[in-house]
């Protein structure tokens, strides 16, 4: 085969055609022997002369092509110590620097986490955690002081974290209506069956329907910087930019083209556990209704039972001042979300991020470990190669 790549297409098509032909003929040669052999006579052999001039007849001799004779040029790697040695050293040499880089990057990320579940008696939120209910009208507030021992230079991401919350439960994940969330009016009024039993309440369709929406995280978090001189300066938290752009602009949409959300959601009712209807989630019409970003973030169900979700972003104001300077802070929580039914924990996380996301040293360690293991194996193989490699020489094949 002179140019395998060029000839390949025709070759492959040819192969497929022959395969199908073979598949059918082989199988039914016997079954329709009587039928076909009358006309297949010509192929069988003796007495066909095609036309007056030509004495040619299709011989049954197979074509002597590299493909049909299974002689296509081939690369035949044999995995032996000698041949794979370089691969191991290369992997080792590549992985260790990558790992170190990842580890350093991860270590540079600053992260602060505070648990405000209120399990301990000493915890400021203990009281709130004791008398909770989804529908309690009187909000319970608790204040958690904390101290940041280093300044956060870049944008700071505020997360709330839940543990032991199985958002990935099969029936929980399903309990939503994507077309309703997309703004489909029909689905708004008649939510999908998947939403049950959170589809209708008192014969009114629930908007947004389903268990996910119903169990939406509804604590409110506020952050204050305790100035050394005693004043509490509220830190501005950005409510937008926390959801995926595609989610906010493509996947989620408010029903109808009606800018008046109250009218648009006319005839629906709020989820059972919600305090306010969906069209009152935010004052900003660009962040209200189904396209409320807190809501969108919640609707992206977490993969693992312990998860965090982006709550707010603290944008860096100027390059001179750190976003969060070192010092004392106060976190004010409006404690609404009950977690005791599943022994859950609630956390607030302040974190800067890098190109590789949040703080996680695992990948860096993994790269360094695997790189070292490969390097070590490379050395082992080098020894193996020196001990056994000579035996593999073709000269002494019979051993």
């Amino acid at each position: 085969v002179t140019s395998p790549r060029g000839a390949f297409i025709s070759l492959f098509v040819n192969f497929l055609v022959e395969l199908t032909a073979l598949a059918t003929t082989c199988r039914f040669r016997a079954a329709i022997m009587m039928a076909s052999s009358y006309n297949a006579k010509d192929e069988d052999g003796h007495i066909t002369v095609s036309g007056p001039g030509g004495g040619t007849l299709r011989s049954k001799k197979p074509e002597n092509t590299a493909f049909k004779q299974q002689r296509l040029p081939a690369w035949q790697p044999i995995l032996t110590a000698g041949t794979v040695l370089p691969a191991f050293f290369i992997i080792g040499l590549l992985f260790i620097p990558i790992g170190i880089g990842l580890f350093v990057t991860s270590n540079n990320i600053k992260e602060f986490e505070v648990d405000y579940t209120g399990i301990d008696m000493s915890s400021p939120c203990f009281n709130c955690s004791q008398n909770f209910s989804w529908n309690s009208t009187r909000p319970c507030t608790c204040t958690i002081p904390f101290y940041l021992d280093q300044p956060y230079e870049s944008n700071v991401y505020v997360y709330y974290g839940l543990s032991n919350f199985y958002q990935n439960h099969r029936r929980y994940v399903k309990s939503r209506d994507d077309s309703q969330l997309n703004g489909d009016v029909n689905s708004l009024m008649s939510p999908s069956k998947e939403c049950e039993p959170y589809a209708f309440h008192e014969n009114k369709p629930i908007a947004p329907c389903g268990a996910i929406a119903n169990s939406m995280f509804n604590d409110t978090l506020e952050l204050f910087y305790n100035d050394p001189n005693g004043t509490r300066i509220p830190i501005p938290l950005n409510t937008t930019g926390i959801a995926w752009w595609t989610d906010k602009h493509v996947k989620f949409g408010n029903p109808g083209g009606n800018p008046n959300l109250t009218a648009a959601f006319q005839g629906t009712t709020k989820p059972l556990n919600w305090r306010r209807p969906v069209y009152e989630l935010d004052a900003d019409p660009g962040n209200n209704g189904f396209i409320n970003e807190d809501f969108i973030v919640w609707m992206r169900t977490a993969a693992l039972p312990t998860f965090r979700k982006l709550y707010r972003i603290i944008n860096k104001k100027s390059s001179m001042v750190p976003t969060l300077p070192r010092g004392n802070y106060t976190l004010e929580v409006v404690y609404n979300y009950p977690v005791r039914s599943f022994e859950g924990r609630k956390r607030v996380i302040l974190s800067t991020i890098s190109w590789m996301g949040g703080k996680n040293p695992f990948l860096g360690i993994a790269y360094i470990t695997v790189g070292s293991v490969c390097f070590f194996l490379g050395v082992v193989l080098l020894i193996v190669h020196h001990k056994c490699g000579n035996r593999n020489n073709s000269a002494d094949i019979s051993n």
Partner: protein
Amino acid sequence: MTWRSPLALVRDALRGQRAREKDLRNLASNLPYEGLEKAKQPNCYFPGNAIKTTKYTLLLFIPMNLFEQFHRLANIYFVGLAILNFVPVVSAFQPGVALIPICVILSLTALKDALEDFRRYQSDRKLNNTPCFIYSRKEQQFIKRHWKDVRVGDFVKVVCNEIVPADLLLLHTSDPNGVCHIETSNLDGETNLKQRKMMSGVCISDPEFEPESFNSAVVCEKPNNNLNHFKCYVEKPNKEKVGAGIESLLLRGCTVRNTDHAVGFVVYAGHETKAMLNNKGPRYKRSKLERKLNTDVIFCVILLFTMCLIGALGHFLWLQALPGVPPYLVPDGNGHLDSPSLSGFYMFFTMIILLQILIPISLYVSIELVRIGQIFFITNDIDLHDEGTDSRVQCKALNITEDLGQIEYIFSDKTGTLTENKMVFRRCSIMGTEYAHKENAIRLAVLDVPVSEEEVILNQQPRPPRIGWSLDTEDSNPEDKWHHHDNRRKSKVTGNAQSDAAFSSLLEAEVIPDRKLLQQISRAESSSSSRNIDPYLDFFLGLAICNTVVVSMATARRQRVSGFSRSDQTSSPLDTLSSLVKKSGSLQHIFPSWQHKPKKNRTISEDSVEEEDHVKPPVKIEGSGDTNKLRTCSLHTPSQSAMTPDNLSYEAESPDEAALVYAAKAYGFTLLARTPECVTVRLPSGEDLVFEVLDTLTFDYNRKRMSVLVRHPITKEYVLYTKGADHAIMELLGTPYTEYLSGKQKNIAANTQHHLDCYAKEGLRTLCFTKKVVSDKAYESWSVNRQRALAAIDNREELVMDTAVQLETDLSLLGATGIEDRLQESVPETIMALREAGIQVWVLTGDKTETAVNIGYACRLLEEEDLVINMSCGNKFACTSMLDCTLEEVRRYSEDPRNVDTTQNISLVIDGRTLTMALSSDLQKRFVDLAKRCRTVLCCRVTPLQKSRVVTVVREQLNVMTLAVGDGANDVSMIQAANVGIGISGQEGMQAVMASDFAISRFKHLKKLLLVHGHWCYTRLANMLIYFFYKNVAYVNLLFWHQFLCGFSGSAMIDYWLMIFFNLFFTSVPPIMFGIMDKDVSAEMLLGVPELYRTGQGAGEYTFTTFWISMLDAFYQSLVCFFIPYLAYRDSDIDVFTFGTPLNTISFFTILLHLSIEIKAWTVVHWVIMLGSVALYFIVTLAYSAICVTCNPPSNPYWILQRQMADPMFYLLCIITTVVALLPRYMFHVLRNSIAPSPLVKARHLDRLDPSTRDQCMKEWRSFRGIAHVRPFRLSTPPSPTLETPVDIHPHSSATSDIMWDERHH
């Protein structure tokens, strides 16, 4: 259409059923009833001739096809799962989506079935509408109708070259002798013409055949599928019964040849014809691998259930541990939550749905595709194509290709399998005198020599002495003779392109007579007094008469034009032409027409066609100027006037018959014509004798002889000529040829027996010829018995055979012949290679022990230094003790430490009678135990039934894979009994091929078929299966590990569509390609080092351990693929399906790269498919993620992969996970290959060397094993005492062997 009561309809149906089921059928002519409605017809209960082979009808296709498909257990399983998915409490996915895979599989299969059925429908329609001639009373002539209009009881006329539309009882033919020639190649592949006799005296046929005069009833048996038996009699109005058998039946599907037209009475039509009853579907066998595969599928099921149980239990415990009702626990529609135990119970089923891919749905489809691909490559192998017959290897069983790679025992037939089955007359003994035919032997030796050694031969061999043999009409000068040999060799080089399909090859056709015998004959000729009773004349008359050879004109021989066209390609047309012209100079009887214009310079095929037109007056055929028809029509029984001995050729059912007739012809006793009534023989004096044939007692395996009873035209005596196997004849001898040589008192029988033994030792096939003069009275009484037997319906065979035995007594011995059946080319090498491959080769033959042993030595089945144990004993007691002694001896021998190093081997030769006893249930174990220790077992004188018994016993007792190879009808049972049956499409018809799983044309093809294709097919499929299981487990376990993190709730983190695509598209093609195209070792290495075949024997690569190792690997890899991303994404804001996407991708790469570790040879196809799969994965997933905004809830993959691919973490994760997942397997391969390389790996190392070094290494390897001692090949061996004329044979054979030896060492 008149209205009929339903009762009447039911009654009719019942009556029809009864009529069809009866053992005997009464048929009458339809003609008196013509035009009446159907119910009044006498034969209305029997089906018409229209056939319907389609399985389905248009309306019922879907239900019927589904019903058909649900016979497969796997399909039911998957449909059950899909249905389970519709139960809301357990559904894991959207119910509709779960149906997709099974629907795809079902509809693909249905589509395939529909296409196939449509093809059948088309061919049925075409066949049903084929025109034919049916007699109509109204028109008073045969009118043109269609096949489908033919009914039982009709009279059908078939003209030359037409296909018989239904089974016809032959009533009239255009041939004055009342015969009709048919070709049955459509039925059994046999290309020789067969004669059918018409039933006379049933109709008025003079001067015109009048069907209306037929007023008898035809009574025939119930339709059956035996092509060679038919029982029927015609009862005339006067109650006289005339019997008829298969010799008067024209079978549907046969082609009428050589006869202008024939008229028959339709006995069976449509589906009741023998041809249709014989028409079974393709063979279905289960391969060993598949049986093992099924147990592994069961293991998978167990694994699946265990995992589901873990899931169910886990869910139960998880729910139990919950302190309250968390918001993520979704109650059912009524707001009710199931109890933990009930939820756990439901979870079990959800898990089954979720993890169902563990049982690979596409496995069976993939295996089928792989096998089709493998068969494609096997049938396309150019090395397995036989130029001589232009036939490829045929795979008839579609699902046992991999069994070819696991064979441990081969059972081979001898005649036609190891040997050519092209018989050559070698020597004869007449009245106790040996005629050695030295010249003939020399001629054969010259022919035998391989072409490359031509020079050597020319130097070593003296030119064959010219002897004056006046009988041969063409007598070219010695120069020509040499040319002619050269040409023959050349034609051999061009791949036997010119070899003829029929038996009368050059080899047999030419016999150089023995000088002494010629003199003897001429002496007998001249002394007219003893002329008619001379034993020499009788001997040759017997040779010429006692057979069933059909005489045809040489011009009419059906040539294979393809042979010419191919030689056109190989050499220039002119060369071929000239060589043919030279050839024709000496071989006029092959191409007589060439004499006229030998220098014509045109393409050959055109020539030959034209010449025939020109030489023969074209036979009249209506409406067709087709050259094909012309040519075949000219094949007719030669008329007396146009006959010359030269252009006769003989077509025989068995090749030795033809060889004997040619031998007789060489001595001037030319068989000129044979009809059922008479035989014409030309004597050396030129006188033509016409013998009236009174009866032919055909050959059967029980009698092992045949006889022809003729009336001598001069003496008017009834003479019975009998020929047969010596032991079948010797015990029937009565009075010796008393009139002759009474004075000498020679014990002819003893002498002949001595000669026979010598012949047998030389490897010749022996036949005895006898004569018996039957007195008029004896004949009369016997003839009455015979007629009665022939007309019998019950036990007809036995009765007919009894009459034959009655007559064949008291025979007087004339002499014996020795016919050589030459070994096929490369048989010894093939057997050596197979043995090195660890395969035991047994030969089962019907021949004499001596012949078999000799052939055994010749084909290196037996070696000179072997210990040959010959077992032959008369009674069971002797047999038992013999078996015990031998076994003890053999045990002691093999345990003796002194024998460890010696290469001496034990071989067992056993004859049929002893074998019967040895295979009896109490001795069976001991026999098998003995046979196991022997390198070779030769069973002689075995019947077909014993052959299959031996195969069955070995297969079952030793639990090994067996292969049986044979070419004749007597091998059919053996072929069917073995795990793999191979038919050799040789000289003895096609029964073996029809019964076989694979059909090859030469024995030597077995080597490549087993060593290369068998090995490849096995390793490919085995590796693919292991990979397939691995793939599914590795993928499904990702979901399983996820359960530990989602409360065992049965949720999936991968989009279900992508999951389906993953198995259906992304990772389905690479393993199939792997199964079709992977090549672990090159064909050259596999052929060069047959030892490599041993890897497949026994368990091979697909064993319990390999299966579980790959399972463990799958578990490990899925763990890595799940938990590395898990640790990387732990406590982050990742969502379910974003988490699933890298998992899916990582798993995809791991699975593909795992395959690339397993792939041994990367061709361009591999690259394209592997890279294509990767491209397909990304393109499809990206497109799907871009389009799907609200589709497929809950996963909703919108823009997930795009986001991931913009994230460097994704790539870093993919790389490290894949590396970690594959590291152990990679290391395992590397270490195994480096520290303890398997022979296959060593072979692969050798493969990479350049060819010359490689050959050197291969030789070293083989010699190291101590198996391949290259020793000269010799025909006669020391253990067998040679004849009194050994010198005649030895010089050339040793010359041959020297050359072969040299050749091997070059």
